[in-house]
């Protein structure tokens, strides 16, 4: 089994996946809804994230490849790694494809 992500000082975890039908990136909010914008992703500690990962049903929720991402908390939260920032905000080379963030 995958080791839990190690968090730096003050960091939180959020859950992400790709939507099954179109592959688009989604983030899980506190109500368990998958949303295209990272803004309202539920910011969890390690244990809560682990429990959510173990209990959610990706197929039923219409997503694929669920995993957790370390973030600096905030609205929107800011992913720690460049990779996840690109996933959250869109490819850096096509500004017209930037992901629209919900207010």
């Amino acid at each position, binding site marked *: 089994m995958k080791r839990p992500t190690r968090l730096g000082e003050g960091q939180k975890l959020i859950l992400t996946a790709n939507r*099954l*039908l*179109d*592959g*688009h990136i989604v983030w899980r909010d506190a109500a368990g809804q998958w949303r295209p914008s990272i803004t309202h992703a539920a910011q969890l500690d390690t244990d809560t994230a682990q429990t959510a990962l173990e209990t959610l049903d990706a*197929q039923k929720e219409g997503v694929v490849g669920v995993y957790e991402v370390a973030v600096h908390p905030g609205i929107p939260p800011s992913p*720690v790694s*460049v990779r996840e920032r*690109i996933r959250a905000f869109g490819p850096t*080379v096509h500004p017209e494809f930037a992901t629209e963030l919900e207010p």
Partner: protein
Amino acid sequence: MNAPIGHYQYDSVDRDFLAARIDEFADQVARRIDGALTEDEFKPFRLMNGLYLQLHAYMLRVAIPYGTLDSRQMRMLAEIARTYDRDYGHFTTRQNIQFNWIRLEDTPEILRRLASVDMHAIQTSGNCIRNVTSDQFAGASADELVDPRVHAEILRQWSTLHPEFTFLPRKFKLAVSGSPEDRVAARFHDVGVIARPGPDGTLFRIFVGGGMGRTPAVGKEIFDSVREEDLLATLEAILRVYNAHGRRDNIYKARIKILVEALGIDAYREAVLAELAQMDMALYRLTPDMVAAIRARFAAPDLTAPPDATATFEADRARHPAFDRWTRSNTHPHRAPGYISVTVSLKPAGGIPGDATSSQIDGLADLADSYSFGELRITHMQNVVLAHVRQDRLFDLFQALDELGLATPNVGLVSDIIACPGLDYCALANSRSIPIAQKLSARFGDPTLQEEVGRLRINISGCINACGHHHAGHIGLLGVDKRGEEFFQITLGGRSDNNAAIGEILGPALPEDDTVDAIARIVDRYLSIRELGETFLDTLSRLGDAPFREAAYETA
């Protein structure tokens, strides 16, 4: 319909096969969506049909066999970009095209539309024999000895759904050339095949065990002169030895290059000969009739030009300096008098290497119809070739390309950069490749400067998988992750021609902007120390990398 110029003409067998295959995949997609198939079960099916799940969406990689396609196929690619993607496509270093924003639901429909123009996405992924690549000037180049497309097509048919080689230890890449000058990077493929005429028919020189990736290797010659009739048997035996002995326990050690390295080329050759000795050679014999039947599916262009075609061309060059400059970098000598081959650069200064919008793709299809018998080729340098252009019409073509924003005069020069999609799109990347390519091509965008620098290739990969062929770049850049930050390792001296070599690491990796500055200093240093007529590689081999290291790491 007449056979298309440049590629194999499908018949009803080919079309029925594609239709059945798409029905099968459509069913798999439906079962994935309704949950009957889990992602783990579905993944091998989608990969066999060229569908990846990448960073932002599904990505569909469409095969362009030996890089050649006709204008109606090109228009279909534009239509797919417009209808199902975000209005552009990305041409890859394996002469294919990728669409980065595809919906799973749409893929059966996309595949049907591709099949309507005899295209597919089979074997563009997975541990099988991938799309066979070839010389972008095949059938056109003045230096060509054998047209490699016929044998590339034979190998495509032999390898497609080959029952024994569908689950190889790892992916397997084949390239075929028929010229003395290696333009296909034959020595950097799992198997590279170079055809030449012999006294009794075509002979094939075969290299095995080349490749990029984590453990780059230059392919070694396994056979010098395989007869045409033994070509399939020999490749079959090479693959069998690999399939039987290649490592399946470690993905990083599974390519044929590792096996060739471990056994040594002589032992590998012995194993292949032993396999051949117990094969029923008659069963694998490639007969002259079979070759002729495949050759007949390729229509030949009528390459007659007016007697004054070259004179008109020379007069146009003399009148228009920008055209003259573009001609120097973006054309290649043709075998037929009065004709010339054109490479259309998809590398505008500051642009994204290999990207083309749907209107550019459509525009290129129109220009192919008007100027090159409706035929196009995609190069492993991520450019597009119009192979058969009449010299007296070249200036018109240049002007039409200019209107499409496709007349950048930089082929083979420093801003003709190969770059993989990198972290902006690729799920495996360590760093972004495109932004640094854009910065470098903008930095060296001045056409006069580029011409002065001369032949210099910069290749960029976003991770050690080396899809951007950085090992073979005269200057190679490899993206590495240093504590979450993007850094680039510089290598010098790579090349993929007849003297194929792997670039050597220059020194510690640098952050992106420092890398751009370091490369600018390397180029400046080259300009100041080269001798008359020396290319960058000449200077590097005369003086070694010390002057360039000093320049790269000098701090102001």
